[in-house]
C-alpha cells in the first residue's frame, strides 16, 4: 500500500464515519416512523410513550382504501359473517365497508399525470436539447436562460392566470391540463440536463453516420438516442419525481377528477379525528417508490438537483 499524505488516518475515518452514521440514523427516524405508523392500530399510533414494538395490523391500509360506515350489532348480524380478511378487520371496529375510498383514484391520477407529463417532457426536451447541443440556434444562450428562468417563478404567482386560462379552455381539473402544466414546469430541467448529457456524446459518431448516408433524423434517433439512453432515463426519473411530488398547482387547479395524491393524503380523516395509521399508510405507498428511484438514481443525483450545473 502506498503512503499518501492526503489519505485520512484510520482514527479520522472512524470518527467521521460515526458522526455521519449518527446523522443518517437521526434523519431516517421520521421516515421509519411513517412506515411503522402505517402498520399500527389507532390506539398504538397515539400511545404515550410512543411504542416501538407493537403488533402489526393492516387496519391502516384497509381504512385507506375503503369507506366504512358504523354498523349496529343488529346490522352486523344481518350482514352475516365477514367474507374477506379486510371485511373482518372493519367488523372488529364495529363498521362495515361501504365501498372503495377515493385514494385509489387519486393514486391512479398521480400515475397518469406523472407518466403522461414525463413522456411528453422527454420527447420535447430531447428534441430541444439535441438542437441546442448540435445546431447553431439564434440567441441560443438567451433562449437557454429563458428556459431556466421559468423555474424561478413562484407557482402561486403564475397560478392566477393559469387558473383563468384553463377555465376558458375547459382544462381546469382535467388530466390533460395537468399533464401540459407539469410538462411546461419540467421542461427547464429536462432541456438543461439532457443538453449536458448530449454534449458529452462525441459528434464523430453522427458525422460518420451522416457520411454513410443517414439523414439528420436517422442520425438523431439511431445514433444519438441510444448513446444518451442512461441520461434520458435519469432525467425522466427526475421529471417523474417532480410531477409526483408537486402540490401547489395540484391543490389550486384540481378538486375532483384530476386530483393527485399529495393534496388528498393530508385530508384522510378517520371516525374519531385524524386517522393517523391510514394517513401513514397512504404516505408510505406514495413515498416508497420515490425512495427506490432515489437508490437507482444515486449516480446522477447531483446533476439532477443542480440542473446539470454540477457534474461529478
Amino acid at each position, binding site marked *: 500500500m502506498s503512503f499518501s499524505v492526503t489519505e485520512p488516518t484510520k482514527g479520522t475515518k472512524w470518527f467521521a464515519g460515526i458522526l*455521519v452514521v449518527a446523522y443518517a440514523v437521526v434523519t431516517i427516524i421520521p421516515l421509519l416512523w411513517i412506515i411503522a405508523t402505517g402498520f399500527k392500530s389507532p390506539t398504538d399510533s397515539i400511545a404515550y410513550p410512543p411504542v416501538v414494538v407493537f403488533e402489526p395490523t393492516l387496519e391502516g391500509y384497509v381504512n385507506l382504501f375503503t369507506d366504512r360506515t358504523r354498523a349496529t350489532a343488529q346490522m352486523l348480524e344481518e350482514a352475516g359473517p365477514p367474507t374477506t380478511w379486510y371485511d373482518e378487520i372493519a367488523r372488529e371496529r364495529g363498521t362495515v365497508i361501504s365501498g372503495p375510498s377515493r385514494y385509489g383514484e387519486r393514486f391512479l391520477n398521480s400515475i397518469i399525470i406523472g407518466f403522461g407529463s414525463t413522456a411528453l417532457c422527454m420527447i420535447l426536451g430531447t*428534441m430541444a436539447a439535441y438542437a441546442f447541443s448540435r445546431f447553431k440556434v439564434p440567441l441560443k444562450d438567451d433562449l437557454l436562460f429563458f428556459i431556466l428562468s*421559468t423555474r424561478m*417563478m413562484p*407557482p402561486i404567482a*403564475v397560478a392566477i392566470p393559469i387558473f383563468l386560462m384553463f377555465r376558458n379552455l375547459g382544462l381546469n381539473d382535467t388530466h390533460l391540463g395537468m399533464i401540459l402544466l407539469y410538462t411546461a414546469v419540467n421542461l427547464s430541467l429536462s432541456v438543461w440536463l439532457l443538453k449536458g448529457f448530449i454534449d458529452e456524446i462525441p459528434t464523430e459518431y453522427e458525422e460518420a453516420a451522416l457520411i454513410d448516408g443517414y439523414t439528420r433524423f436517422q442520425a438523431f434517433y439511431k445514433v444519438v438516442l441510444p448513446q444518451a439512453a442512461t441520461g434520458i432515463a435519469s432525467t425522466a426519473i427526475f421529471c417523474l419525481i417532480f410531477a409526483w411530488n408537486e402540490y*401547489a398547482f395540484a391543490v389550486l387547479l384540481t378538486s375532483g377528477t384530476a386530483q393527485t395524491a399529495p393534496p388528498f393524503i393530508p385530508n384522510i380523516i378517520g371516525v374519531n379525528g385524524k386517522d393517523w395509521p391510514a394517513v401513514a399508510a397512504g404516505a408510505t405507498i406514495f413515498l416508497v417508490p420515490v425512495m427506490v428511484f432515489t437508490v437507482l438514481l444515486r449516480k446522477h443525483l447531483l446533476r439532477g438537483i443542480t440542473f446539470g450545473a454540477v457534474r461529478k
Partner: protein
Amino acid sequence: MTDSPIDRVAQRTPPGVAHKIKGLSDRTIAWIFVAPTIFLLLAVNIFPLIWTIRLSFTNYRVNRPNRDVEWVGLRNYERILNDPDIWNTMQATAHFLIWTIVLQVLIGFTLAYLINKKFKGNDLWTTIIVFPMMLSPAVVGNFWTFLYQPQIGLFNYIVTFFTGGDPADFSMIGDVHLAPWAIVIADTWMWTPFVMLICLAGLRSIPDSIYEAAECDRASKWRQFWTITIPMALPFLMLAVLFRGIENFKMFDLVVQLTGGGPGNTTTLTSIDLKREAFEKWRTGYSSAYAVILFVTVFGLASIYVKALNKVKER
C-alpha cells in the same frame, strides 16, 4: 468558430449528394426541434406572466365576473407596499430563509467534509441521508404535524427524553414563538442533504496535489482548511445557497401543510399569503400586483447574487 461538426460534414460531402440525402436542412430541423418547447413555455409561463402584470393594474376579481373591470393604475402596488401585514409576512419569510440557509450550510458542509474522509460504506450512508429531499414536501409536512403533536408526538418525546420535563408542555406548531422554528427544523431535515451533495462535489473537485504541496510547506491542517478547502469549495457552497434561496423564497407546500401559516400569522410566508389573497379572498388584481412584486424581488436578488458568484469563480 466556423469549423463546427456540421460544416465539416458539409465540406466532406459532395454537393449533389448532400442535397439528395439531407432532406431537411439543419436549420429547419433545429427550428422544428426547439419550437414546441419554446411554444409551450410561452403559453404556460410568459403569457400568464404578461396577463398577471396586466391584471395587477386593475381591480378585477375572479369571483365577480360581471363587475366592470377598472383600470386602477399603481394603486394595488401602493396598497401592498404600505400594508404592515405584508411586511410581517416578509419578516417571517426572511427568518425562514436566513435560518434554513445558515443551518443547512453548516450541517451540510460538515457532513460533506466528514463523508469526504472516505470511510468504508460512505456511499450507502450518503444515499440514506439523501432520502428526505426526494420526497413530496406536502406529504412529509403533513406527517411532521404528527411528529410535533405535544402529547403523542415523537419529536416532543425525544426532546423531553434528553431535557426532562413533560412532552405535553410545549407545542411546536401551536406556539407563536416555536412555530417559526418548527418550519425551520422540518425544512432543514428535508434539504440539508441537498447542500451536502453540492458541497461534496466541491470538496471532491479539489485535487490532492494541492494538499500534498501544502504538506511539503508544513502548513497546518487548520491552515490548509482555511486557505485551500474553504476558498476552493466556496463557488459550490454559493451555488447551493442560490438554489436553496430561490426554492425557499417560493416555499409553499411543506409549510402550508405543517402549520398552515399559523398560529396567527407567525409562519405565513409570502407564498402562503399570496395564495390566501388570490384563492381565498379572490382579490385577483391586488394579488397579481403582489405576485409581480415577489417575482421582481426573486429575479433582482438572484441576479445580484449570480454576479457575486461569477466574481468568486473568476478568482
